[in-house]
C-alpha cells in the first residue's frame, strides 16, 4: 500500500466521514451547501472579472467592485471548501483515483495561483484604474484566465459524478 492510499484509507474509515456516508440526509445537505458556496464564490469572481474586462458595470471602478464583493466571495469560498472537504472525505477511498477529481484539484491549484497573482501584483495598480485609465493588459489576461479556470473547475466537478 502506498502512503497516499494508507492516508486515504484512514481518512475514509475515520468517524466523521463514515457518519456522513451512512447518513441519509447529511450528504445531500452538504452537497446543497457546496452548490450555494460555489455559486456565491464563482458568481462574484465572474462579475469582478467581467468588470475588469470592461464588459459590465462600466462606470464602476474595479477597485471598488473588488472591495465591495470580496466579503461575499470569501463567505462562498469558506462554504465551498469546507463542504467540499467533507464530501471528499466521505467518499475519499472511492473517488481519489477519479480522473476528473484529480483534474479539479489541479485546476483549483492554478485558479488559486491566479487569484494570488491578481491580489499581489494586479491589485497594487488597481486603485489607479478609472474610466480614463483602463486596466493593463496583464490584468485583463488574468481576468480572462480566471473566468476560464473557474468554469473548468465547475465542469470537472460535475463530471466527477459520471466517470
Amino acid at each position, binding site marked *: 500500500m502506498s502512503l497516499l492510499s494508507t492516508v486515504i484509507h484512514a481518512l475514509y474509515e475515520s468517524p466523521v466521514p463514515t457518519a456522513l456516508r451512512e447518513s441519509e440526509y447529511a450528504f*445531500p445537505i452538504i*452537497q*446543497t451547501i457546496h*452548490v*450555494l458556496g*460555489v*455559486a*456565491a*464564490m*464563482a*458568481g*462574484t*469572481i*465572474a*462579475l469582478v472579472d*467581467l468588470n475588469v474586462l470592461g464588459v*459590465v*458595470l*462600466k*462606470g*464602476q471602478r474595479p477597485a*471598488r467592485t473588488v472591495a*465591495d*464583493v470580496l*466579503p*461575499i466571495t470569501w463567505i462562498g469560498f469558506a462554504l465551498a471548501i469546507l463542504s467540499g472537504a467533507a464530501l471528499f472525505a466521505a467518499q475519499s477511498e472511492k473517488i481519489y483515483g477519479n480522473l476528473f477529481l484529480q483534474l479539479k484539484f489541479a485546476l483549483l491549484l492554478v485558479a488559486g495561483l491566479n487569484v494570488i497573482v491578481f491580489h499581489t501584483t494586479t491589485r497594487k495598480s488597481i486603485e489607479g484604474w478609472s474610466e480614463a485609465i483602463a486596466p493593463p493588459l496583464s490584468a485583463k489576461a488574468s481576468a480572462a484566465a480566471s473566468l476560464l479556470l473557474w*468554469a473548468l473547475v*465547475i*465542469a470537472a466537478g*460535475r*463530471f466527477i*459524478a*459520471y466517470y
Partner: protein
Amino acid sequence: MSLEPLFVWLGQTPPGVFLAKSTAAFAATETLHLISLAVLAGTVLIVDLASLRVIFRETSPAGVARGLNPVLITALGAIAVSGVLLVAAGPLKYYTNAIFPLKLATLALAVLVQVGVYRALSRDELGLARGLAAASLALWFSVIILGRWLGLI
C-alpha cells in the same frame, strides 16, 4: 388538461434523444446550467445586497442594477435553455417529481420579484426595493435548494 404529452414530446425531440444517450453531453449541459446559475447568483446577490445597502453603499443601487442587467438576462437565458435540455433528457422523471412544479413556481416568483426590484430601483422607490430585494434573496435561495433536492427524490 394533462401536460404529459408535452413532456413526452420534449423527450422525443432530437436534443432530448441525444442527451438521453450521451453521458458526456448531459454532464456538459449540467455544467452550463451550474455556471450560469453561479453567474445569476452572483448578480442577484450584488443587486439585492446593494438595494439593501449592505454593499456598494457609495454607488446608487439603480446604477448597479442597470450595469448588471445584461448579465442577469444572459444568465437567466442560459439557465432556461440548459434547464429545458436537462428535462428533455429524461422528461417523465420530472413530470412525476413532486418538487419539480414547486421549483418552477418558486423560480417564476423569484423572476417576478427580481423584476420588481429593478422597477422599484428605477422609480427611486428605495423602501419597496429593499423589501423586494430581501424577498428575492430568500426566493433564489429556495430555488437552488429545491433544484438540488429534486434530483435526489
